[in-house]
């Protein structure tokens, strides 16, 4: 439990609902309510998958707060819980707080303060791409990039690298140069390869899943993902031998 100067109490909803956890949550709530706080914040950040037991617990908390005349807000509500509440027509019965939680769990550092970048060169084989992806993942973790954004960046890395591998005409022994550079509130990913020229901005797909399934033409998903997961893409052909793609994504 956490309490701030304005008498806002925050209680974490347990993930595992054994008897002790439920008693602990309810007991904590009762103690808090005796203190007549301005508001009780029910922290749902650990509920990636909500069960009926969690819904019952939230409902019980709401009832107790109502009886005590204390306002209650659900905070750090994830998509899974939100959807369950909506399906059960319970969403509007709770007040949602505006407290955002990132999936990574740890509070992110300010990536712009890190002053570091990652530079690697890897083979265009799948093993080479996967090894480089692991290093990129570790770099993002060290940098404190929020979980959802890091996940998007890793997808972009994988899609760009596999796109180069499949379509640029490189052999498995040819290398791809990669760098990741955080600046202020964004990060730039730069890929350089010596394959066939290809500007990822030139391919424009109006990806329609219904049409794709109906016509069985499932093309352009990778490029669509790349284009929609970053904020900016630039492409340069250097000296008629090098493709340089730079993708920029905001970190907040």
């Amino acid at each position, binding site marked *: 439990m956490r309490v701030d100067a304005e008498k806002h109490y925050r209680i974490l909803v347990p993930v595992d609902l054994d008897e002790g956890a439920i008693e602990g949550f309810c007991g904590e709530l009762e103690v808090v309510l005796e203190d007549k706080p301005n508001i009780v914040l029910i922290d749902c950040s650990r509920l990636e*998958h909500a069960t009926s037991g969690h819904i019952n617990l939230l409902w019980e908390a709401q009832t107790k707060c109502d009886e005590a005349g204390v306002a209650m807000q659900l905070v750090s509500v994830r*998509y899974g819980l939100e959807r*369950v509440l909506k399906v059960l027509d319970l969403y509007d019965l709770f007040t949602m707080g505006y407290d955002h939680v990132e999936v990574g769990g740890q509070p992110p550092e300010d990536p712009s303060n890190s002053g570091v970048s990652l530079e690697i060169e890897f083979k265009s084989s799948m093993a080479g791409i996967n090894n480089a992806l692991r290093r990129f993942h570790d770099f993002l973790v060290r940098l404190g990039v929020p979980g959802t954004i890091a996940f*998007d960046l890793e997808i972009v890395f994988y899609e760009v690298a596999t796109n180069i591998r499949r379509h640029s005409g490189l052999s498995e022994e040819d290398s791809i140069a990669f760098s990741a550079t955080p600046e202020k509130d964004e990060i730039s990913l730069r890929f350089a390869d010596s394959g066939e020229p290809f500007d990822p901005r030139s391919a424009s797909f109006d990806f329609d*899943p219904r049409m794709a399934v109906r016509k069985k033409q499932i093309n352009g*998903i990778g490029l669509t*993902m790349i284009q929609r997961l970053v904020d900016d893409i630039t492409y340069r052909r250097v000296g008629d031998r090098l493709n340089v793609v730079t993708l920029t994504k905001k970190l907040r």
Partner: protein
Amino acid sequence: MSSLLSQMLKGGIRYAIIDMKELELLSSAEVRSILGVLGGFRDAGGDIVLCNVSDRILHVLEILDLRDFLTIMLPFECESAQHVPAW
């Protein structure tokens, strides 16, 4: 995975539940695999259902306009479903 789903469809199975729990990264290859056979399942009166879909993967499905197009089990439905990990 695509060939497994195709085999299931040819074998008369109309519903496939794909457990996404162990999926670390959702690439275009996985999306293509699902969409490539989805029409066959739906034409046969069935469907492909995704379960244990994390927030991160949901986000990617959303940017591809697939969140409402695909059938995604609610978390508490996944708990009671019997399924086969497909990845």
